[in-house]
């Protein structure tokens, strides 16, 4: 209702709500502002009481914002759209994403102007991320570094592992648990280099962890970058040229387990080994170990077989020679047994001759001995006879008979003058008797 003015020249005004109603009328019914698909990037996205608020922006090639509009997804729609987006992308809506949204321009007298988002087409975002990734990959290729990490030799069993992960993450726990409790008792040595695996800090913290590992490079066989469990958003933090270039050029083979079933990151293309989950990374390492153990079993079997064959071959040779020996031996034995027979036959003959000879010699000797004995006896008898005659000639009786006498004193035969003294009684023995006398004088 128009009020009567005190100043007739004064322009006629309407109330704000009347004006807003006109805006509302204009906007909310204008063609091309309802359910229009719009391409825009998200910024300053936040969820408040179930409603998702954001700024939709458009940037030029230099990153300068050239268009901007506040937008909202009402809670009732957001629950559905977020689930749909998650299912397609493996990640929720977040700041910095390029979206294709179905929006309606909405003006509310009380709350102002907003784009109300009614739908999102995730395939556009997917395509945009793929395009971004493709650009990074092109650049890595052009720089000649895209395959560098893949070309590094990987030790038979990487046992010394530098792990880049968020310390408390479920994925890290799964990885460690899997390695530590592997049923083959394979030993792994891990060292955690903690890093933020989501949000703005992802790239700088993973780069810092790689730098630290590089300082201790000689202690490790491989690097494992894992991320898993918790929210599955923020995956495209890894789609970063600097990070990809560092991984590609890292001097140790890198195993990445950060991907997602439905998505890949640039790191998956540059790392030596890519697996889907932290558990799969552990399984890959354990598998290397079991392959090595199986290879050792094969080698052991080969050693045993080689020994068996070589010994078997030698034994065969030996058996062959053993077979040869009897024939040769038989010949030797036969030759020798003939010689032996001859000897055996000749032995009695030779022995008889020998005995006969010896007997003749013996008989002759006996004969000779008999003659010699007789002769010796005769000689001795003659000698004895001569001795007897000599003895008889020299006997005291004969001597006494020849006129000699013996003088006895004190029972002893006196053979010297000094043996007796004057006055001593002596007995003189003659051949036919004795005479006693006393010594007068001794001269000598």
């Amino acid at each position, binding site marked *: 209702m128009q009020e009567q003015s005190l100043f007739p020249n004064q322009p006629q005004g309407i109330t704000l709500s009347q004006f807003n109603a006109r805006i509302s009328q204009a906007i909310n019914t204008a063609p091309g502002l309802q359910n229009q698909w719009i391409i825009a990037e998200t910024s300053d996205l936040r969820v408040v009481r179930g409603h998702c608020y954001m700024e939709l922006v458009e940037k030029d090639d230099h990153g300068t914002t050239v268009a901007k509009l506040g937008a909202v997804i009402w809670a009732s729609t957001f629950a559905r759209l977020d689930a749909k987006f998650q299912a397609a992308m493996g990640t929720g809506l977040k700041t910095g994403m390029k979206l294709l949204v179905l929006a309606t321009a909405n003006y509310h007298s009380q709350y102002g102007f907003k784009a109300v988002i009614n739908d999102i087409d995730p395939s556009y975002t997917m395509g945009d991320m793929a395009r971004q990734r493709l650009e990074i990959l092109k650049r890595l290729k052009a720089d000649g570094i895209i395959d560098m990490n893949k070309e590094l030799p990987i*030790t*038979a*069993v990487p*046992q*010394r592992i530098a792990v880049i992960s968020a310390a408390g993450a479920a994925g890290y726990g799964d990885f460690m648990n899997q390695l530590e409790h592997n049923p*083959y*008792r*394979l*030993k792994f*040595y*891990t*060292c*955690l*280099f*903690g890093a933020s695996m989501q949000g703005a800090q992802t790239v700088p913290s993973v780069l810092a962890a790689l730098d*630290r590992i590089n300082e*201790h490079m000689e*202690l490790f066989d491989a690097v494992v970058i894992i991320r898993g469990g918790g929210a599955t958003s923020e995956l495209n933090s890894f789609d970063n040229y600097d990070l990809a270039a560092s991984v590609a050029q890292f001097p140790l083979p890198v195993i990445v387990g950060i991907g997602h079933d439905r998505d890949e990151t640039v790191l998956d293309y540059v790392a030596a080994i890519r697996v889907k989950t932290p558990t799969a990374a552990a399984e890959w390492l354990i598998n290397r*170990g079991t392959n*090595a*153990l199986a*290879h*050792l079993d094969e*080698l*052991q079997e*080969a*050693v045993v*077989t*080689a*020994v068996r064959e*070589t*010994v078997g*071959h*030698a034994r065969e040779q030996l058996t062959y020679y053993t077979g040869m020996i009897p024939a040769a031996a038989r010949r030797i034995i036969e030759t020798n047994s003939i010689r032996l027979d001859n000897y055996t036959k000749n032995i009695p003959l030779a022995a008889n001759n020998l005995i006969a000879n010896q007997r003749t010699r013996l008989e002759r000797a006996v004969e000779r001995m008999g003659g010699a004995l007789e002769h010796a006896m005769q000689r001795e008898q003659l000698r004895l006879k001569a001795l007897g005659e000599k003895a008889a000639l020299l006997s005291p009786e004969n001597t006494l008979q020849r006129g000699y006498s013996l003088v006895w004193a004190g029972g002893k035969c006196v053979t010297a003058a000094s043996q007796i003294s004057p006055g001593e009684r002596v007995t003189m023995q003659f051949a036919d008797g004795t005479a006693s006398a006393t010594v007068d004088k001794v001269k000598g």
Partner: protein
Amino acid sequence: MEEIKEMTYTQAVTELEQLVQKMQDPQCSIDNLTAYTKRSKELLDICRKKLTAADEQLKQILADIQQQG
């Protein structure tokens, strides 16, 4: 011949593979067999040990580095 304890797994398994090849050669003399078998047993043991026996010293070094982080 390299001191066996100083060898890496790769070195040990490479020597073992070469040794097995020698032993599989029909010209392999039975006189060498004992020495080859003994050496291959040693190499097999060290390889298995490297895969399954704990190196406490290395564990400690890595624990220290992890703590510094």
